[in-house]
């Protein structure tokens, strides 16, 4: 008999249970959460800072913060992988720009509700493939603009400075890229 993949609701319930145990200072639960999401967090950080050691530090910092402030996490407001991804991006960009990441404000402010399931390894791989597929399908200038905005945290004006393209062109490229992303992924 084939074992079916747990539903998203079941995966989220597992996350909630693990977080409850983390709040109760259960180290094993933190270890399980780390096993579930460390690759995602590390991949984002490594893509942004492009430095293995720095990415590992960010990864460790984020899970350490999760351990310290787990009680502040509200699963009703958002999903755990959503928070982890946003925290990883913010911390990595802060490091890239040598800014203080503002430790302590992220658990509440960075809580987001992901529109898609990322709570299992299978779901992560499926979603990775879809997002990568969309990114690869974008024209190079659009993809570049989107990556500069997301992975380097640049604003419109900063992208203009970086690429030398007119402001209107940059804005159009970003808007078009986002529209394509949303349509293709059915977001």
């Amino acid at each position: 008999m084939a074992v079916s993949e747990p539903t998203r609701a079941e995966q989220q319930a597992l996350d909630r249970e693990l977080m409850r145990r983390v709040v109760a200072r259960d180290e094993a639960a933190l270890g399980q959460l780390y096993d579930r999401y460390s690759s995602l967090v590390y991949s984002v950080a490594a893509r942004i800072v492009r430095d293995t050691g720095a990415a590992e530090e960010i990864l460790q910092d984020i899970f350490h913060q999760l351990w310290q402030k787990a009680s502040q996490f509200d699963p009703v407001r958002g999903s755990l992988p959503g928070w982890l991804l946003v925290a990883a991006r913010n911390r990595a960009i802060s490091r890239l720009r040598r800014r203080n990441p503002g430790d302590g404000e992220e658990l509440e402010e960075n809580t987001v509700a992901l529109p898609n399931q990322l709570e299992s390894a299978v779901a992560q791989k499926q979603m990775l493939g879809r997002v990568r597929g969309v990114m690869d399908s974008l024209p190079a200038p659009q993809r570049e603009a989107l990556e500069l905005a997301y992975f380097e945290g640049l604003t419109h004006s900063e992208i203009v400075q970086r690429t030398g393209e007119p402001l209107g062109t940059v804005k159009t490229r970003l808007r078009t890229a986002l529209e394509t992303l949303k349509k293709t992924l059915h977001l």
Partner: protein
Amino acid sequence: MNGHPTRPEDFDLYALGALDAEEAQAFEAHLAACQQCAHKAAEARGRMALLSLAAPLQSPSPAVKRRLMRQIREDAPSSRLSYKARSASGHWWAFGWATAAAALAAITVFLWIGNNRMRMELEALREATRQEQVEIQRSRALIALLSAPDRVDVALAPGAEAPGAQHVHRRPDGFLLAHPAQRGGGGIVHQVHQAAARPASFQPVVEAAVQLHQLAKMLLACTATEMRTFSPARAHPQSLLQHPAPQRLFIDVQPVFFGQVLGSQRRPEPSLFRPGILLSNPSQHLLPELLWLGSVGTFPRTAMLQSLGTLLPISPPQTLGLPVTQLQYLCGVHYLQRFAPHPPHHFCPLQFPRAHPCPLQLDLLWRSQFRGHF
């Protein structure tokens, strides 16, 4: 911003962080006042978070997890309990576990205390043994010093030394230097000095004297072909000057040391003189940072150091090793006592023997005085 954002992508651009500061502030001001747009902005943040997945998937090193787990254990070891232990607190057998744990803890503490006491006793024994070994070494050194001849004369092989040359025997922490103090009559009197690169390398008086003597013997073993002992009576400078044997080298082992001058901004002059105080660097070409500090007279040590501070721009003068200055001062006192009727006009290692060839007596006097202390 006036009214709601006109295009759906506006929320995505805001969530992406692509809006410039002014636009972002206006957007946030609207979100604060509009619940409907705030909800859309929250959805947009979720969509934009998915862009993280455009990063190539990589796995971190397993060491990161180990570091993380170690870090959280170090956070609050006293307040940490395992989840299972906490879950078990409501069971009837929790009391049994607690009792067993308490007993185990008591045994552990008892064993730890016992182990600690044994370790301390062992440490004390080791320290006592070490002290005894130091005492034995010190006693041996003292015996070697007291039984050592007062003077050794060495005849070098012909041609082994050019007149006026300096003999140098290098050691890891400095060198032994013999420079010609007197010549004439076919004989050359050498003064032998021990120099060290660091004040810490200088030894206390007894060890230093023994070491100096032993080093002198090493030097002799390297260069001498003949050794014989003079009696004190025959060690008078005049007898040395009239010594008939050619190519004679008389090595006079003196407890004279070089003191290191720390923080000096300029090189010391080859010789500086002030009544009662001598500063010189006869080995300037070998170790320019070394300076010889000598005192002649009944200067208290503190006064000597103060005078030293006025001679050279060094601060503080206490950087000179204490054993060195004590030994130098001792020599100075004995020298003055011995030659009080005819005090020297000046005191310089290169000119000293010509004015008063006293290193021989100085050495003998010092050693006899030294014996008197024991």
